[in-house]
């Protein structure tokens, strides 16, 4: 009989980085399975992380599938499970089961330009695609990142973004001006309209708060992006992660199984109930 899909495998936390502190804390965790295995996955897929005694939470795998040494997860402290996750230390064990979801169709994007548009924690789900594209730079066209958060302290992967500036175009933003901030001030959709990414032979991937996604898509449409050139990841409350508990559906789709990655062409035809 095949392995029980509901039983997580134990994984050890090998590294924890505090990205954002305070009330809306974000930490990045790197884990390795205790039995020395790794699973194959695609960028955009997620895994259910278990804190035994608290529960499970579905988190995107933000490391590239080409990196075999660990799985990386960036977690925003939001409720019971994520708070417990934030209490853990290097060496602690959690449960991991996955990978779940459909992943980004990167094989369709060969030789295309990719513009990554993220807000807040939304950078994490698309980080995997970005890292993969950088590792295989010869397969893709021009890469650019437009990323923002409320304040400079809320930006994730801050140091990595600075490093990225050497390899691709990176445009950061914060909502309200701060002393020492010399990049764009305003919301991410406004930054998109300011930087005017070309829609020619380009794929745009966006992830962030629902309201940001809505306005980014509008901005991209104004910049003449077609519906099938715009990709996003959707989030919903999940429990089983495998399309059986009925909780995360958008229309006939289960976000955990048929999503979370959708092109705007597909998503606009689903009931807008998410």
């Amino acid at each position: 009989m095949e392995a029980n899909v509901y039983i997580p495998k134990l994984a050890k936390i090998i590294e924890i980085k505090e990205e954002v502190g305070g009330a809306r804390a974000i930490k990045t965790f790197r884990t390795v399975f205790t039995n020395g295995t790794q699973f194959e996955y695609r960028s955009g897929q997620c895994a259910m992380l278990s804190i035994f005694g608290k529960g499970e939470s579905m988190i995107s795998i933000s490391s590239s599938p080409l990196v075999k040494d660990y799985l990386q997860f960036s977690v925003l402290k939001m409720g019971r499970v994520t708070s417990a996750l934030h209490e853990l230390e290097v060496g602690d064990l959690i449960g991991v089961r996955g990978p779940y979801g459909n992943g980004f169709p990167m094989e369709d994007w060969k030789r295309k330009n990719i513009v990554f548009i993220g807000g807040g924690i939304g950078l994490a789900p698309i980080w995997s695609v970005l890292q993969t594209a950088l590792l295989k730079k010869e397969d893709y066209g021009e890469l650019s990142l437009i990323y923002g958060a409320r304040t400079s302290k809320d930006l994730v992967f801050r140091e990595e973004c600075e490093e990225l500036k050497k390899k691709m175009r990176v445009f950061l933003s914060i909502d309200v001006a701060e002393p020492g901030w010399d990049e764009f001030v305003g919301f991410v959709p406004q930054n998109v309209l300011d930087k005017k990414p070309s829609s020619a032979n380009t794929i745009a991937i966006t992830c962030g708060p629902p309201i940001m996604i809505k306005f980014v898509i509008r901005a991209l449409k104004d910049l003449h992006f077609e519906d099938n050139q715009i990709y996003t990841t959707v989030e919903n409350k999940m429990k089983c992660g495998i399309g059986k508990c009925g909780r995360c559906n958008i229309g006939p789709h289960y976000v955990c199984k048929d999503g979370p990655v959708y092109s705007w062409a597909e998503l606009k035809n689903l009931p807008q109930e998410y």
Partner: protein
Amino acid sequence: MEKILLKKALPQWVKALASYTVYSPKKDKEESWNYAEIDHEDFDPNFLNTTLPPKKILFPQKEIFLEFSKTAEGSQETLEVKEVLPEKKAAVIFGVRPCDARAAWLLDKVFSGEFTDPYYWIRRNQTTLVGLACDAPPSENCFCLSVEGSPFSEEGLDVLLTDLGDRYLVKSLTEKGEKLIQAAKHHFHDPKPEDRKKVKAIQAESVKKIKRQLKDARAVSSKLKGSFESPLWDEESMSCIRCGICTYLCPSCHCFDINDEVESASPLKGNRVRTWDTCQFPDFTMHSSGHNPRPEKASRLRQRLFHKFQYFVETYGQFQCVGCGRCISLCPVGIDIIKVLDKVNKHGS
């Protein structure tokens, strides 16, 4: 394969099934039955249908997935996670109405596919369903014919019994069913031509007795898509009290929750448990952030009807409703799924 079993020989058949856990409908209070373990009883001749459908046995309300525990030895703390599977014991459920078996057939689709649910399948595979064809609709709200079922449908069953007065026509439909009959084969005889004729007559009569009808269910299914934004949902859900009766008692509803139930906090010990859940509870879809895609009753009523008559049809080509009528009979405020869908049909675009 068809056989005849005299009604008075039924208890002998049950006795021969000592290696199985045998369930049969038992009368609870006035006019209400529920499946209970039996070892020799006969069938209640007045049996209509159970309140809780057979999904209670195939997909129990509580299922332990795993046990977790932490043990400390000095400064070392070890975490142990142990899978817990259902007990391997063969079971038989007598008195399964064709609609409820059809619902099990629909649940089979949900729990297979890309991922297999081991808990459901261990129970499903070790349980033999013995159906009882309806010679009259058990409920005034039955509408199995409208959703492509029938009072004598065979989907999901291993054996089907048709009541011929003093005997049953016993039709085995699967290997499991055949095995069950073989356990007491000397009590079964070959049917006569008049037995088969009587079955046909009973079936024809039974179909005529079904009063309620959902007209053009397939057309309603297509019209539903266009009714997503209709004010109909707000109107029809005004009296909904957001309990879980319609979904918990539905033989084909399968939404569930998974929670860690802690017995001891330190040292940590507990179980990860699956329990029934319902899309009708306000917090079903609520995110940790407080954002709720379905905060209003209207959206939740819409979700239930869409799931049963549109989303499931899109994914599996079948209605997820089997027309048992329980949700209509037991809704405390009389919300009637047929009435709502009739309205969709009339006003649909």
